Structure formats: structure tokens, C-alpha cells
């Protein structure tokens, strides 16, 4: 669990909550505003490997998990942020992690989360003429794409 100690030391006050599922799966909750600095520390200073980010709709809020892998010890650290239900938005990490821009575009179009500072938020998986305001991965949208609200 040395990695957790290092993380605690580096991220300090920014960690709001720690959930240790087991020694290889650790979830840290941070404030949405701090995500850029935290990602910088984890990705650049601690040299973790960027795996992916997963967004989720929690009904009352949105949630993004940024997964980082520490391959030498086989641990996955997930940075968790919660976003407001109305107009969810967060800083884009594309200048910290170049590879993240595609998944941010995906979350933008499937969940409707806005990424401030992203170089090109445009449709990626869906058609360009996809109905505006229809974000298929939100819980209010049925599996077939119809809006249940």
C-alpha cells in the first residue's frame, strides 16, 4: 500500500474520500475543480499509465472515474469526481494526457458532460445530426434512444 501513502502525501488535502476495495483497486474522491492538478501529479509525477475515464449517470449527479494504472505493482487507482446534475462540466485533461481527448468527446456526446478547454468537442460515435439534448447513456433515455421524460 506504499502507493496509497505516496498519493496521500502528494495529493494531501485534495483527497476527500478513500475507498479501498482491495490492495489492487483503490478509489479516491477529489473535487471536480482539482482534477487537473491531481491528474498532473498522478500521470506525470508518479508516472502512472492512463487507462481510461468512465462517466456515469447517478440520477442526482454525474460521476467521472479517471482510471490510472500503476503497472509495476498491478494497482488501478481511480480518481472519482462528482458533477452537478444541471449543466455538468469539468476541465478537459487533454493538455495533460494527449490520449484522453477521444474519451472526453465520447462522454460529451453520450452523457452530455461539458469539457472546458477541449480542442474539438464534436460528434464522434453518433451521427452529426443526432437530436440535440439526447444523450443515450443518461438514465432518462431508453435503450432504443427514445426520451422517457
Amino acid at each position, binding site marked *: 500500500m506504499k502507493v496509497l501513502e505516496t498519493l496521500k502525501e502528494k495529493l494531501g488535502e485534495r483527497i476527500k474520500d478513500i475507498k479501498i*476495495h482491495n490492495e489492487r*483497486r483503490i478509489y479516491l474522491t477529489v473535487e471536480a475543480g482539482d482534477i487537473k492538478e491531481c491528474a498532473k501529479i498522478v500521470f506525470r509525477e508518479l508516472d502512472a499509465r492512463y487507462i481510461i475515464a*468512465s462517466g456515469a449517470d447517478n440520477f442526482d449527479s454525474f460521476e467521472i472515474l479517471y482510471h490510472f494504472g500503476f503497472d509495476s*505493482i*498491478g494497482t488501478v487507482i481511480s480518481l472519482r469526481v462528482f458533477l452537478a446534475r444541471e449543466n455538468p462540466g469539468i476541465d478537459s485533461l487533454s493538455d495533460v494526457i494527449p*490520449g484522453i481527448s477521444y474519451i472526453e468527446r465520447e462522454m460529451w456526446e453520450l452523457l452530455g458532460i461539458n469539457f472546458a478547454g477541449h480542442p474539438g468537442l464534436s460528434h464522434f460515435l453518433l451521427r452529426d445530426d443526432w437530436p440535440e439534448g439526447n444523450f443515450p447513456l443518461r438514465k432518462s433515455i431508453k*435503450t432504443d434512444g427514445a426520451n422517457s421524460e
Partner: protein
Amino acid sequence: MNDKKKVIVPIGPYHPLLEEPEFFALYCDGEKVVDVEWQAGYNHRAIEKLSEGKHWDQVTFLVERICGICSTSHPFAYCNSVEDLLDITVPEKARYIRCIIGEMERIHSHLLWVGLAGHFLGYNTVFMWAWKYRESILEMFEMITGNRNHYAMFKIGGVRRNIEDEDIPALRKVLKDIRAKLEMLTHAVLDDPVLGARLKGVGVLTKGHIKDFGAVGPVARASGVDIDIRRDDPYAAYPAVEWKVIKTENGDVFDKAVVRLLECMESVRIIEQSLDAIEGSKGDIENQVREMPVGEGIGRHEAPRGECFHYVRSDGSNSPVRHKIRAPSYTNIPTFKASCVGQMIADVAIILAGVDPCYCCTERVAVYDADKKNKKLFGFSRLVEMSREKTERMRKQV
């Protein structure tokens, strides 16, 4: 976007060898590639959403149908993630069976890649031979699981079917044959001067690129990045068998080919040891799961193309509330931005193929002439043709 649409299809970039449609725009200056643009979604099938409406057990069948080549990798990673959520272990015999299926898939997937890479370079003989060897692996799959692809072997808590003792001798014989064939193929690739001239120093990815894009699997290992989930985050029976991680340093297409071929040999070793372990064993093959707790789980598996990542979240009900899937190609494909830029158009086909982009993703390549602004487009078949012409030229020189 509209004019792109109009130009792409008439050229018919649906190349006979590649499957899933994917769009790449190469911006070129003369023969040189300046920029690459990737457009996905032609193959988007709403799997993450569909998964939220399926029973936990049904999702294994759904994730199997993400990809036909890695149809074990996704169930493998998914089962790992649910088992992480449940905090259960899998019986020993099931762990070995999982390894056997996973490694057989690696062999067939890498052989498929070797064949296609040969085809792109104008070596159609390699294509025919590699696919012929691959056929014997598929036959074994049919014998063990009942289907050539989409084996449906995996189940949360274990495996669905046993590998019977009477099947093992046939499996051993196939492995013995394939080992000889693999050795032959490896030497054929390593010793061929034309292949060397054609592939060495082409599409180089440095360690920095791998880090930036988060590339995984043979792509990363060919660049000297030592990651392999089978060793780093041990699961199934991988810690119990002896094998080694293959790694090279140069990061070009040649090294990627070498890594893949040598990995196949390691897979053969893993399968043979696993067969020794399960032969005659009467153990259980699954742990029954009765209840789903609230929680979340992460599962990983080293698929033929790299780390396959699944994240599931449960609210205690019958189906996942969120199921995030990351296939290895998702982070491998963006490396084209680094590997194609500055290269000749004729090399692009093999660079794109070098990543083994879940073999489908390189379908639509359009070449833009940056000087003239008007779009001059080549289909992918034209790119392959150019690639072959270049091989032919080099063959004459060597």
C-alpha cells in the same frame, strides 16, 4: 463532413480484407503524411447501454459479441470485474481452462495478423499459409466449445464447459504442429531481407508516445515498455505457469511483428503447462453465485491487442447500473497521430496494420492533397496497392 461522405464510398474503401468500417483522413503534402484524423462510430452498437438492460449472466454473451476476434478477451475481463465486485475466487481447474482458451485465442489472433500484414505487403502466400495454420486452432475451439468463434466458455464464477480428458491428446498434437509452423514463420519474417528493409524504422513509436496515448499490448512492448497485465495484475492461472513477457526496443512495425510471433510461442508454452495441470483432474469448474451485492469492480485481461478493461457497478439488482468497456484498440489507434506523420503514403497501410487495430478499424482511409485543397482520395485498396508496389521496388534492390 458531407463532401467527405460523397467521396469516400464511391472509391469503395471496403477492402476485401478489413471488416469494420472506420474512417481515417490523412492530410498529405506530396507523398508525405502531415496529419491523421480518426472518425469512429461506424461500428458503434450501443453495447454499454444494452448491458444495462441485461441480466448479469447475459452480459457475458453480449460482451463476447463486441469483437469476433477477441471473443474471449471481453468475457474474460468482464468476469474478472464481476468477480472483483463479488470478491470470489474461481476453482483451480476453471482458472486453467480460462488460460487455455485465452491463449488459444492469442495464437489465432496473432496468426490472423501475420497473414493480413503479409497481404498488405504483397506476400499473399503468407496470408494463405498463416490462415491455414490458424484453421487448426479454430477446429480445436469447435471441438472444445462447440463453435469456431464466440465460444461462450466464460461464466461469472467459472467456466461453462469442461475440457474433457479425451480432448487433450488432439489438442496437444495441434500445439506440437503449430509450434513447428510458428518457428518456421518467425524465421521467415526475421530472415527476409525485403521485409527487413520494408518494416524496419517504419512507423516508430517512442516510449514517450506510448505514455502519452496510453498504448498497450504488443504496441507498447515493441517500444520497450514492459507492461503485461497477465504478469502485473495476476489473475486466472497465469502466476502458476512459467512464461515470459516478450519485449523489444525499436518500436517499429518489424518489432511489433516479432513481438507477436514470439508471443505465440509463449502461448503454446502456457497452454501445454495448463493441459498438464488439468489432465485427470476432477475438480469443480464453477463457483455458484447466488446474490449480487452493491458495489463496483474493475477487471482486466491482457487481450491479444493489449489490456482490456471493464468497469462494472451494481446496485444489488439483476443488471449492472454502469458497465464501461475499454478495448485495447481504443488507446492504440490514436498513436497513428504519432506513427504516421512524416511517413510516406505507401507505408501507411502497414503502419495502420502494425497496430492491429482490432482489425477493422483501418477501413476507410482517404488521402487529402493539402496543397490543392481539392480532395484527392485514394481508397484503402489503393493504399495497399501502393504498399505492394513499394515492396516490389525494394525486392528488386535487395
